[in-house]
């Protein structure tokens, strides 16, 4: 019984980032505010990049793909646009993980620029070529800028969470 409870506890803690990602994609949670119009950031990119880079066993590629599909339906984007964008962010994270031996906040942070650029390029390319929607370039620029600026904050939060998982699992 105790073992079952321990496994359950472990699974719940390990599912935390995935639950957060699904919730952000599927709910009304938004990171764009009318009162300070230029401020918005892409929390999905941060979550995906961090967890694929630091602990890929927490966040499966299949779930990332599904979250992208949910996001497309909610935002009325052509189906699989966000999914492709998220998968390319995952690809950059997986590449950095394979190519670097020791990673730190700064290496993660600066390689994240490449992930943001590629992720947003996929959005740009697919929306501007395959849909009738207009793109407001300055909004996307500010979104990318704040996503980049806020990465260290979430990096700190997720590092703490990772330690919490480790302590709980090994308790």
């Amino acid at each position, binding site marked *: 019984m105790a073992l079952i409870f321990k496994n359950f506890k472990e699974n719940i803690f390990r599912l935390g980032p995935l639950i957060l990602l699904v919730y952000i994609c599927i709910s009304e949670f938004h990171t764009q505010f009318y009162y300070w119009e230029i401020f918005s950031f892409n929390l999905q990119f941060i979550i995906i990049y961090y967890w694929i880079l630091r602990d890929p066993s927490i966040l499966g590629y299949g779930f990332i793909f599904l979250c992208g599909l949910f996001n497309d339906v909610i935002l009325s984007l052509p189906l699989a646009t966000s999914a492709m964008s998220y998968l390319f962010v995952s690809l950059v994270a997986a590449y950095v993980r*394979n190519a670097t031996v020791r990673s730190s906040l700064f290496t993660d942070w600066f390689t994240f620029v490449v992930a943001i650029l590629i992720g947003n390029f996929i959005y740009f390319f697919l929306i501007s070529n395959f849909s009738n929607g*207009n793109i407001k370039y300055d*909004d996307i620029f500010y979104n990318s800028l704040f996503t980049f600026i806020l990465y260290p904050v979430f990096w700190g939060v997720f590092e703490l969470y990772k330690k919490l998982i480790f302590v709980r699992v090994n308790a």
Partner: protein
Amino acid sequence: MSTSRDDFGIAIRSALLQRGAKQKFSLFVLILVSIFIFTLDNANLKPINFLRSLINDGIYRISAISSSPIKFSETTKDFFVKQVFVYKENERLKSELEQLKKSNLNSLYLKTENDSLQNILQLKKDSPYTLVNAKVILDKGSPYLNSVIINKGSNSGIKLGMPVLNQGFLAGRIVEVNFTSSRILLLNDLNSRIPVVVSPNGFQAILSGVGKKEPTLQYLPENFELNDKENLIFTSGKDGILFPGIAVGQVIVEENEVLAKLFSDPDQIFFVSVALDQAKEERER
């Protein structure tokens, strides 16, 4: 040089194809599946549209349920903010009440006069449209789209392009219809373009969303003269989709552009009415 290229190739290949201990799919396979789904969705085939409509309905319902904690927290915050300011508001309201009492007599006279004039002109007091009332179930902002989702769809007779009213004023138009849900493109969205007429001058213009709260008036005639307080904006019906004469907003003249202050605040849309058709009497007029 060739060693570094080899390293890059190995790292990329590994990132694309390696599944790892807990990964059930490789990135390469999922990217291919995404491209396949994207192509199918863009092909605009009837069965795919039908399937997408079903998926949309399901996901919107799940999304509405999962958003309830956010809605609850916003309502709670609003409640406490209101409580904090209730004392000041009470004082202000007391003084306003005194003022209103004084003007009440005058208003009563004007109302009676207005009623009699309306009777003379035989104006309809009811809405001139056949309306379907709906509730906003999802309002998710994004840099790409300002739209909301309502809980009525094709099963209630809603079709693409129909105008949506909020408290009698134009709020947007229908851009996606599912069986039990629809998406409204709000007037301030970057993709929104509505043909309008500015009263009393009768200038024709296009109301274009710019992603901010106030859309702009474009394609006004040369040497136009507009005034902030006098000029109101109505739909012109020139596109043949929206009905003419729906109130939209008030003109705001700024240095280099003419903006529209919308009567229907895009941040405050909770219940809407979709205008299915003009009432018979209105069509005959």
